[in-house]
C-alpha cells in the first residue's frame, strides 16, 4: 500500500460521498435506497480492499472477511422475507400505549 494508492483511494471515497449525498436529494422513488446502498457498498469495498489490505491478503483471510458479511446477508434476507410476507394486521402504534 503506497502513499499514492492511499491518496487515490481517499479521493475516490470523497467523490463517492459527494455523489451519494447529492443523489439522495434527487427524487428517484425506491431507487434512492438502492443507489445509496450501492454507493455505500462501493465505499466499503474500497476501504476493505485497499485500507484493510484484503488485496494483498491470503485467500484464507479474504474468506474469513467475507464470511461475516455473507452470514449477515442471510440474516437480513430471511428476517426481511418474514416481515414482508406477514399477513396479520399491524396494530397502530399509538393505540397500544
Amino acid at each position, binding site marked *: *500500500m*503506497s*502513499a499514492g494508492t*492511499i*491518496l487515490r*483511494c*481517499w479521493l475516490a*471515497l*470523497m467523490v463517492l*460521498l459527494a455523489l*451519494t*449525498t447529492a443523489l*439522495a*436529494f*434527487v*427524487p*428517484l*422513488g425506491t431507487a*434512492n*435506497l438502492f443507489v*445509496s*446502498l450501492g*454507493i*455505500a457498498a462501493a*465505499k*466499503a469495498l474500497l*476501504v*476493505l480492499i*485497499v*485500507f*484493510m*489490505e484484503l488485496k494483498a*491478503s*491470503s485467500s*484464507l*483471510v479474504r474468506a*474469513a*472477511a467475507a*464470511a*461475516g*458479511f455473507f*452470514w*449477515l446477508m442471510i*440474516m*437480513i434476507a430471511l*428476517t*426481511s422475507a418474514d*416481515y*414482508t410476507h406477514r399477513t396479520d394486521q*399491524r396494530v397502530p*402504534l*399509538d393505540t397500544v*400505549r
Partner: protein
Amino acid sequence: MADEALSFQFATPVQQREAVTLGMWAFLATEVLFFGALIAAYFNYRIWFGAEFVAAAQMTKVVLGTTNTAVLLTSSACMAMAVTSFEAGSRRRPTLWLLATAVLGLAFIAIKGFEYSLEYGEHLVPALNFDLARHGGVAEIFFMFYFCATGLHALHLLIGIALVTWLAIWIGTGRINRGGSTTRLIGLYWHFVDVVWIFLFPLIYLAGRNG
C-alpha cells in the same frame, strides 16, 4: 499484544502474521453481525412502518452527518498512512499520522456530541425527553434505532481513539519495533469502525431526502 518477537507457538514470522490477521478478522466478523443485527432491525422497521419511518429520518442533521462521514473517511486514510510508514521502518511519521487519526476521531465525537445536543433541544431523545405528541410513535422508534446505532458506533470509536493514542505513544517512545503486527491490527479495527459508519450514513441521514 505481540510486537516484533516471534511467539513460541509459531514457526515463522510469516505464519505469525497470517494467524494474527486471521484472528482479527474472526473478531471483526462477530462485530459485523453485532452491528448487522441493528441494521436488520432498521430494514424491518422500514418495511413495517414505511413512509412514516422514513419521514422521521428527515429530522436528522444531514450537513453534520455528511461532514462527519468525510472526517471519518479522512481519519481512515491517515490510519493507512500510519501503517504504511510504520512498515517502511519510520518512527516519527507513523506517530504523527496516528495522532492525526486520533484528532480526527475526536473531531467526529465532538460533532456527534453537538448533534446529540441539537436533538435533545428538539425533544427527540427517547426515554429522556421525547415529545410523543409532536413527533409520533414511529419517530420514537426511528430515534431509538438512531441513538442505539450511533451510540454503539461512538463507543467503538472511543475505544479506537484510546488504542490509537496508546499506539502513537508506544511507537513514538520506541517501545514497539519494526515488524510487529500491533499497528496493522489496530488499523484493521479503525477501518472496520469506518465501514460500519459507511453503512449507517445512508440509512440514517440520506433516507427520505428525495421528497
